[in-house]
């Protein structure tokens, strides 16, 4: 038997350091210097890779230069495209929030502060790779040049809504962009992405899959299922955890984030876990590129944790001032992704305030124009289709009992 003292047990309940009213405090977050980590070969052995799960891959340094082994060395045009997509995403989010306030839609979810994650990751992938996103990766669609009018129409549930009024706003589906239908149930897309990747490998295809979940969602069963299946079958998939510190009102400590990093969950499955500065466009790009190469060369799956901060409310139904200090995002030590990439381009001599201003104006006008088009088809309250359409697609063909119910509805 053990020799432990006859001490009384006590239950530990994790609690964030600060709550509303207090000053934001990120002093416990270690921000390592940019560029200090090596980029290992994609087939490096497990043990070599462990460290990346606890470190933080960073490329942009304090002087806005791109440094170190993980720098993807993108040309200026690509960088400008990245900047444009991120800005476009942010302006789109702002416009949609306004629409919600104006009653044009019932609901919206922003990704403010997290734009680098989806945009850089989409750009690091090939266009035919398959994405299994959560609801906060609208940047993937922006970076795949998907028409925003299309998203707006779903948000408004108007007759051009691709989901025919069946889904909440933001739960997009865009097959032509290789973007999987977003589920309202957290995490379910994770093992689905693994299955898709297994299928691609089975068919000797070259397309790989990627999936995203939030820090909070890592606690779901499907997270474990996905990692298990990914490692057992060495599926060509990239599993991303967007650690934006919050899951509605619960901080990441409630998901176990204080005991270890989310990237380190990979270790126990014998997979590489990369922890990345999620507000560093180049670091996200570089890490994703590495993982893509790995998956595409039959070297196996990767787990990537993008360390970022949810600057906005969880959704339009949420008010974070109830559970965290006001303006905490301004104290966030990793800054703002758009600002950081902008400064990098300026440092390179490839950008300036005027061009930024002009780009902002251009995108604002584009969003406005798209909005006008989308609104012309209708906003909240416009029916997207005949009510009878709700009976379609339950099955491929309508069985008798649904036909009867449809008739009954129509006779009302």
């Amino acid at each position: 038997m053990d020799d432990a003292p006859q001490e009384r047990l006590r239950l530990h309940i994790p609690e964030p350091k600060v709550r509303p009213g207090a000053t934001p405090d990120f002093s416990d977050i270690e921000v390592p210097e940019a560029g200090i980590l090596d980029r290992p070969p994609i087939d490096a052995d497990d043990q070599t890779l462990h460290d990346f799960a606890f470190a933080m891959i960073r490329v942009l340094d304090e002087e806005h230069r791109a440094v170190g082994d993980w720098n993807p060395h993108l040309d200026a045009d690509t960088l400008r495209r990245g900047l444009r997509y991120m800005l476009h995403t942010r302006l789109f989010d702002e416009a949609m929030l306004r629409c919600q306030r104006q009653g044009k839609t019932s609901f919206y979810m922003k990704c403010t502060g997290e734009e680098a994650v989806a945009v850089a990751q989409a750009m690091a992938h090939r266009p035919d790779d398959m994405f299994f996103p959560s609801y906060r990766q609208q940047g993937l669609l922006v970076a795949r040049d998907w028409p925003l009018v299309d998203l707006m129409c779903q948000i408004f549930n108007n007759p051009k809504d691709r989901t025919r009024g069946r889904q909440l706003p933001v739960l997009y589906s865009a097959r032509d962009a290789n973007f999987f239908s977003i589920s309202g149930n957290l995490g379910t897309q994770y093992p689905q992405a693994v299955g898709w990747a297994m299928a691609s490998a089975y068919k000797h295809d070259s397309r790989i899959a990627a999936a995203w979940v939030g820090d909070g969602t890592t606690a779901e069963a499907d997270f474990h299922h996905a990692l298990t299946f990914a490692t057992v079958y060495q599926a060509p998939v990239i599993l991303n955890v967007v650690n934006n510190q919050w899951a509605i009102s619960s901080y990441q400590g409630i998901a176990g984030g204080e005991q270890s990093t989310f990237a380190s969950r990979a270790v126990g499955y014998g997979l590489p876990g990369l922890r990345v500065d999620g507000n560093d466009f180049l670091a996200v790009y570089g890490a994703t590129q590495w993982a893509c190469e790995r998956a595409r060369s039959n070297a196996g799956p990767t787990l990537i944790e993008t360390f970022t901060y949810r600057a906005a409310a969880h959704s339009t139904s949420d008010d974070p001032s109830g559970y965290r200090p006001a303006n905490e995002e301004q104290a966030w030590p990793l800054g703002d992704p758009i600002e950081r990439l902008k400064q990098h381009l300026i440092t390179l001599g490839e950008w300036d305030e005027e061009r930024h201003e002009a780009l902002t104006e251009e995108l604002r006008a584009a969003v406005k124009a798209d909005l006008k088009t989308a609104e012309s088809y209708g906003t909240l309250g416009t029916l997207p289709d005949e009510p009878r359409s709700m009976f379609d697609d339950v099955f491929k063909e309508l069985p008798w009992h649904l036909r009867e119910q449809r008739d009954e509805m129509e006779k009302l």
Partner: protein
Amino acid sequence: MIQAINSALDICMSRDPDVLVFGEDVGYFGGVFRCTAGLQKKYGKTRCFDTPISEGGMLGAAVGMGVYGLRPVAEIQFADYIYPAFDQLVSELARLRHRSAGEFHAPVTVRTPCGGGIFGGQTHSQSPEGVFTHVCGLKTVMPSNPFDAKGLLIAAIEDDDPVVFFEPKRIYNGPFDGHHDKPLQPWGKHPMGEVPEEHYRIELGRANVVREGADCTILCYGTMVHVALAGAEEAHVDAEVVDLRTLLPVDMETIEASVKKTGRCLILHEATKTSGYGAELLSLVQEHCFWHLEAPIQRVTGWDTPYPHAFEWHYFPGPARLAKALTRLMED
């Protein structure tokens, strides 16, 4: 109704230190619907706390706590998210007392907001209660008003069997009879909106006849009780409206007495039709009252489709649909 639920939790916690309340966002924040507001502050972090987003883990842990001797009250944020916990509910919580021949049991209460009418789309609107009535070993409850909600929730928490407690979120802030275009009435104006401060229980397994009538019997629960009253009025039918309150064990005595009196029966629920709880109710009525039936029993329910977003009101079994069915029921 939110305050009534909060009050029930508060009272149970104050009377019994073994009552613990937890779930996603229920701690500091007080729950996305505010049902647990203030409880962490009052009872401390170890008695009311957030859990990881893991419904299965939450109920697995709840079973263990119950086995230890606590009385856990777990919140599943939306009934649509109860499925990841299905195995712990069905294979463990429901079966434990039986499989261990009474050596172990876990008096867990699972609270969860259900139902639609809040523009929540298919994953914030479901009514899965029927499934739980098929699982022997679980009690299933759904209140239709604040007074009942408090009394039933206290009874559920104090019950030594596991209870799945469904809270129709559409009536959290006021009764709703299906007229979505009319302004919401707050509970304050409703007779059942008045909730005594003290401890009281409404026995599980007892229905409530909320309206006596001679023409026919409407069996319903949750939000649908209000729809039933409105629909009957609109159809000018003198319906007896039975609010079941507990679905399992169901109050067959009250049902039987009513149907034998009226000779006609209609079942109203929001869940999808096929193999919904209405099927069991219909079967029970048919088995117990066959020779008294003057017309076929009817079901008015949600369609057999996922809960739509834009077509919510075409899906919702509202008073117009009910009225039409009642008219047909009386003509049959």
